């Protein structure tokens, strides 16, 4: 299942180690997650559903969906998709039995920072780089490395050179990380922010489980860049192991060099679906077809053309009706849709495949920002519930900012720009003599954003942003008047 040769990525695997899965000794490499190590060993059922005991595989691959919970070294409910494997680890089915061993004491550490940034993806990293010139910055991410979802983007970015167009996501991640590491920024990895509290000042609590440390953080301002999570789609058998989020598959394949299967079916012909299809082919995985419910392809034409040239059929006006298989995907039934989105009887096709990728959109991960009390609103064009904010990315709760997919499902390029704007605006009061300079820079980034959103693919995000801004000003205006 491991990818040995790849046209773009060179997998630098760590030291070979051993671990145990339900008593069986297996091989893994240092630096990969438990879920990836299991997958490389052909183990795809990771947990069972709570009520009916149905088998579950991984889905999101980035610690957000909890379908990969297992027992590791006696501790139940461990998120195996973001926990690194270690020599001698004992991984077992999640029987939810508590260990008999003593719980080692944990440390409480108090931190004080001007700016706290939650999330080390393109938005968070960009915010940190800009803010660090003027203030103390603390950057927190629950993964073991920085870069967010850039670390699995092997394709070259579009847009302007300034936003790193022509560069691959993985390289952008590296560049941003290098820049962050050069600056005086305190970075906490493997650390989950578990709560926001208003104590008259902004207060975050974060936990580093590996080092048993609880951080109590007092922050002047906070920028949330917690990203998004993949949407599920309703169809028969959608919980079978082998039905994965498209991003989950990218993580497995492009970050850890593990093939998701032999033949895949992709649902959704937006850019994520199209790019994923090409990446699968690069990893020498067959793509049976792409199905798209809309009457036409949603992603860039160049991507679609490339896929078609490789002989992958794209069925528009089709959707998935059913996934079938014994404890794992063995195939899927797809069918044509009528203009009311109902399946047309008799149009079914049986597609043999051993995994299915859902590329049907993302929803902002608002759990943390919602705790701050910033106003949250459901805006369809933004991908769901989003925190209202102004042009400077500040929410209705003063001193609390959002950036990136959390603020509207868009692209890594716009996430970087939003991060820069948020990072700069948050530090204005800390920058004594540079206020004008900062405002000029912000203006420049705003213009770049404007240009970015002018194309066809900028229509939806632009509508979303305008709604978010309008609602923000309505709320704040009402508040000032009352």
């Amino acid at each position, binding site marked *: 299942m491991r990818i040995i040769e790849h046209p773009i990525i060179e997998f630098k695997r760590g030291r070979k180690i051993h671990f145990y899965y339900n008593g069986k000794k297996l091989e893994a490499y240092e630096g990969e997650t438990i879920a990836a190590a299991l997958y490389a060993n052909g183990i795809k059922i990771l947990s069972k559903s709570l009520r009916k005991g149905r088998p579950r595989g991984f889905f999101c691959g980035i610690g957000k969906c909890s379908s990969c919970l297992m027992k590791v070294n006696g501790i139940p409910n461990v998120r195996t998709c973001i926990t690194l494997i270690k020599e001698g680890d004992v991984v077992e089915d999640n*029987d*939810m039995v*508590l260990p008999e061993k003593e*719980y080692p004491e944990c440390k409480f550490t108090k931190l004080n920072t001007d700016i706290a940034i939650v999330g080390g993806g393109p938005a968070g990293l960009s915010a940190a780089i800009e803010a660090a010139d003027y203030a103390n910055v603390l950057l927190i991410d629950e993964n073991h490395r920085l870069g967010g979802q850039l670390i699995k983007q092997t394709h070259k970015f579009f847009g302007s050179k300034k936003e790193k167009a022509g560069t691959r996501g993985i390289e952008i991640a590296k560049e941003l990380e290098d820049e962050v590491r050069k600056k005086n920024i305190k970075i906490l990895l493997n650390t989950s922010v578990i709560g926001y509290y208003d104590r008259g000042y902004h207060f975050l*609590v974060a936990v580093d489980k590996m080092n048993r440390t609880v951080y109590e953080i007092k922050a002047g301002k906070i920028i949330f860049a917690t990203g998004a999570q993949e949407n599920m789609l309703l169809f028969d058998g959608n919980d079978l192991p082998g039905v994965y989020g498209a991003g989950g598959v990218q993580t497995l394949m492009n970050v850890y060099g593990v093939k998701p299967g032999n033949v895949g079916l992709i649902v959704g012909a937006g850019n994520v679906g199209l790019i994923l299809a090409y990446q699968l082919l690069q990893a020498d995985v067959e793509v049976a077809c792409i199905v798209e419910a809309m009457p036409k392809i949603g992603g860039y034409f160049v991507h679609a053309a490339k896929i078609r040239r490789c002989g992958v059929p794209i069925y528009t006006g089709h959707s998935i009706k059913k996934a079938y298989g014994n404890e794992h995907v063995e195939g899927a039934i797809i069918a044509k849709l009528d203009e009311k989105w109902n399946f047309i009887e008799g149009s079914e096709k049986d597609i043999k495949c051993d995994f299915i990728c859902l590329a049907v959109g993302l929803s902002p991960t608002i759990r943390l920002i919602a705790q701050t009390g910033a106003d949250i609103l459901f805006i369809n064009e933004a991908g769901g519930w989003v925190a209202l904010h102004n042009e400077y990315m500040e929410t209705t709760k003063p001193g609390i900012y959002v950036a990136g997919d959390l603020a509207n499902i868009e692209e890594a390029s716009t996430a970087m720009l939003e991060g820069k704007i948020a990072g700069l605006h948050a530090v204005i009061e800390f920058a004594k003599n540079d206020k004008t300079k900062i405002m000029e820079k912000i203006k420049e980034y705003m213009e770049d954003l404007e240009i970015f959103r002018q194309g066809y693919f900028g229509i939806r995000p632009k509508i979303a942003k305008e709604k978010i801004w309008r609602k923000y000003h309505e709320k704040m205006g009402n508040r000032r008047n009352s």
Partner: protein
Amino acid sequence: MKDRAEVVIIGAGINGCALAYELAKRGKDVVVLEKHYICYGATGRCGAGIRQQWATKENALLAKKSVEIFERLSEELGYDIGLRQGGYLIAIHDEEEMRQAKKNVEMQRSIGLPVKIISPDEIKEIAPILDPEGMEAIAATFCPTDGHANPFKTTYAYARAAKKLGAKIYKFTEVKDIKVKDGKVEEVVTNRGKIKTKYVVNAAGAWSKEIAKMVGINMPNKPVRKEALVTEPIERLFDCMVISFKHGIYFSQQEEGQILGGIPSPEEKIGYYTEPTFSFLKHMAYMLGKYAPPLKHINILRQWTGFYDVTPDALPILGETNIEGFIQCNGFSGHGFMIAPMVAKLLAQLICQEKLDMPIDRLSMERFKGKITKEKAVVG
């Protein structure tokens, strides 16, 4: 929305919904008005416990008769309310508490409750996860017929059954005013229209005080912010609710294995404050670890706040007032859920002018004019 009803109940928590059912069952034309949604207030945020071990006879009797109703409620309402009778284990920490416990147990046994005092070894037998030393417990009282039910399911079950019998529940409907004429309630004014009525029942929980003001009644109730948390699910470890009056802690294991509990927060506040605090989380996690050390290994999923509607003696305020037709059903001080079935029955009997199963005169607001006896057995 209807413009006329015999009885208008304000608040769709457990007590409002249970009363709507009891009245509808008796053929009354009932409307429930709810500012938010069913279970928005204390009911949907409570610890879900059902306890009969009280220090005052009124509470103990109300609770006992409620348990008798809870036991057949799923069948009566045609909906599973998730009742689980695993008992309540109340820690006794010192000699003084032991004296009080002995008095309580004697009273409780006199009304027919199977309560007994148990040793630290027996504590470990009932719930092996508990550490009597960490609990600082020299003994405990235990009543096996106490337990817990699902507050959401119970309230929905009552609401559903009430609606089937013709009651109307209007959600997102806020009461703006109550018109009184010649000392009698006449009309309820809401943001969605007016309703003429003979009876108004004030079951608005922590907001009851505000409702009472509309008819010129000043209530001594105080809204107190309380906090609770729930963990991830784990294997079934124990069946009882564990509580301590000294530490104020309570916790139990829910249907799917989550541990749910609360403790008075170091930042407990009077007033309509809804912010959860980290000091609660820290304190509760620490105390859970003392009471049941293996729980240190699990994650907390959520924490939230709710209000206790607290009266000076921690007993509810029930029954008629000097405004004819204005009925009180509030002041539950943190135990409104567990006594709701009986409270609803009694108030329905009162409104329908039937003979009451037990007297409730001592629970009217009149009692605050004299010397008050406080209910001591309070947690959370």
